[in-house]
């Protein structure tokens, strides 16, 4: 479904702030797989998602989605095939527009927008019925500005919006990180339900080892812009949250060793 080949991206090249965010990442993601991406801060996992979404031009590499080379496509064009939920609950909705308007905008994701009515009565009732399935009592607030809702509520609606038209690829960028534990739990369950219901090919970034161990069919571990581990199949089924934490500690120890080795060399030779 999604093929990432040798993705390379350096931000602020040739400056003191240079960040080598992606250093040749290659991944093949099969139709219907639910891939969890984990990694330390700055490991490039969010950059990987943004590269798939087309937020920035790549330095090198190609992206193929559903058989089409989308490498050169701008973000809004790729949006026809991709549904997205952001880390910040405020990013996914237009705060001054109503709940119904936001959903109706999403119902036309990637389609031409002309002078037809945004909210015909039929669509409005359809939207309300789907919102009712969230069990958050939001169906009574369809005409309220979405900015008056809580972060958890907005994130649930964003998830609904991203998947209203079935996307070829669903991108979830730490979409529970900014929520309180109870709301986060609710969103995780909703994510699980929607993804399995529609058999969505999903790429989800998370900081939570618990989520990584319980959700999904495959775990990709990133560090310093590279894929460090790719765990699928029987290995994936055996893995527990502690194992993942342990792996991270190993990486950190290796890095510290590098740092102390460099320190030692500097003391000896400089």
């Amino acid at each position, binding site marked *: 479904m999604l093929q990432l080949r040798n993705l390379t991206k350096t931000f602020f090249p040739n400056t003191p702030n240079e960040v080598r965010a992606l250093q040749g990442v290659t991944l093949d993601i099969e139709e219907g797989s639910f891939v969890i991406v984990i990694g330390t801060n700055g490991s490039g996992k969010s950059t990987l998602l943004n590269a798939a*979404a087309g937020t920035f031009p790549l330095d090198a590499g190609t992206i193929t989605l559903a058989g089409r080379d989308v490498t050169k496509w*701008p*973000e*809004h*064009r790729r*949006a*026809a095939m*991709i549904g*997205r939920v*952001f880390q910040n*609950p*405020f*990013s*996914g*909705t*237009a*705060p*001054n*527009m109503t709940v119904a*308007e*936001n959903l*109706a*905008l*999403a119902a*036309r*994701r*990637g*389609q031409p*927008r*002309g*002078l*037809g*009515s*945004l*909210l015909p009565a039929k669509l409005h009732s359809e939207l309300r019925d789907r919102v009712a399935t969230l069990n958050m009592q939001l169906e009574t607030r369809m005409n309220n500005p*979405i*900015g*008056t*809702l*809580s*972060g958890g509520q*907005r994130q649930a609606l964003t998830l609904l*919006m*991203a998947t209203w038209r079935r996307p070829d690829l669903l991108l979830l960028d730490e979409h529970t990180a900014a929520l309180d534990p109870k709301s986060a739990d609710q969103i995780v369950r909703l994510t699980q339900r929607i993804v399995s219901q529609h058999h969505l090919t999903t790429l989800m970034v998370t900081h939570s080892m618990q989520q990584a161990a319980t959700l999904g069919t495959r775990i990709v571990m990133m560090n310093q812009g590279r894929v460090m581990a790719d765990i699928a199949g029987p290995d994936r089924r055996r893995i527990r949250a502690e194992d993942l934490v342990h792996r991270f500690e190993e990486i950190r120890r290796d890095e510290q060793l590098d740092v102390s080795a460099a320190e030692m060399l500097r003391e000896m030779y400089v």
Partner: protein
Amino acid sequence: MTLLISAWTIGLILSLLALGVYISYRVFAFPDITADGSITFGAAVAAAMLTRGMNPFAASGAAFLAGTLAGACTGVLHTRFRINQLLSGILVMTALYSINLHVMGQSNLPLLSARTLTTYAERIGRRLSGGDTAVLLGWPVSARELGSLLLIAAVVLLVAIAAYLFFRTNLGSAMRASGDNAQMIRALGVSVENMIILGLAISNGLIAFAGALLAQYQGFADVQMGIGMVVWGLASVIIGRALVGSDSLGSALTGTIMGSVLFRLIIAVALRWGLNPNDLKLVTAIFVFGALVLPMALGVRTSRPRPSGRPRPDGLIAR
């Protein structure tokens, strides 16, 4: 009375300018100075066509199209060449000054002998009053003034309804969303850049249309007539916001029109009381400054509480 009628008429004409400023400033949070040039552009195009004996409706329509072109230019400068919003507007406005002089051929173009929309308005007024003067609430009013007011009121009503309907279509809603949350609407497959270009085109089209009507009402087009018009539009939008106290689409559009008329009436009364016309722009600028700064200085919210979400910039003041 004539003074009041005239203030109403000009207020309504400039409410089209205010609607244009509403689109750029409120919908997109884009402080678009092109308006100063495009209102004159509209007046110049209409005047040049009218003095050549062309149909007033065609001339007014051409003014609208000329304005859309100017707005689209500003939009392209900003989105494709990544020039700062204010600077894009300034560049197009400055270029328009020369273009306007070329279009008019001189710095002031009188329309006294040309057939304009005012000619039609006068005919309507005569038919209604049965003579040169009508009596309105016990005051004599010329048929020309009465007809102009009615014609303009009808035009503004139509434009407001069209704007209301447009912003509830798929395209219009995508435009509102582009101003509200660009990241979100991009992720839903809309090119925010194209929306800005289209939005500024419509905005400046309306503003140029207002210029065409103003030139026909006052009987001349002048290359200087656009100076300070953005600030005028801002004042109208801000007063309108205070009058209706709501951000919903219908009340925002109504408020903007009411704000423009009210502001014109205030100015007319102030001039009557002896305000030096030379101080007009100064007073307008100070008024807008006060409206932008006072709420912040007093620590009062200017809009309804937003418990969450990105607050819409209420002023041009960077935070």
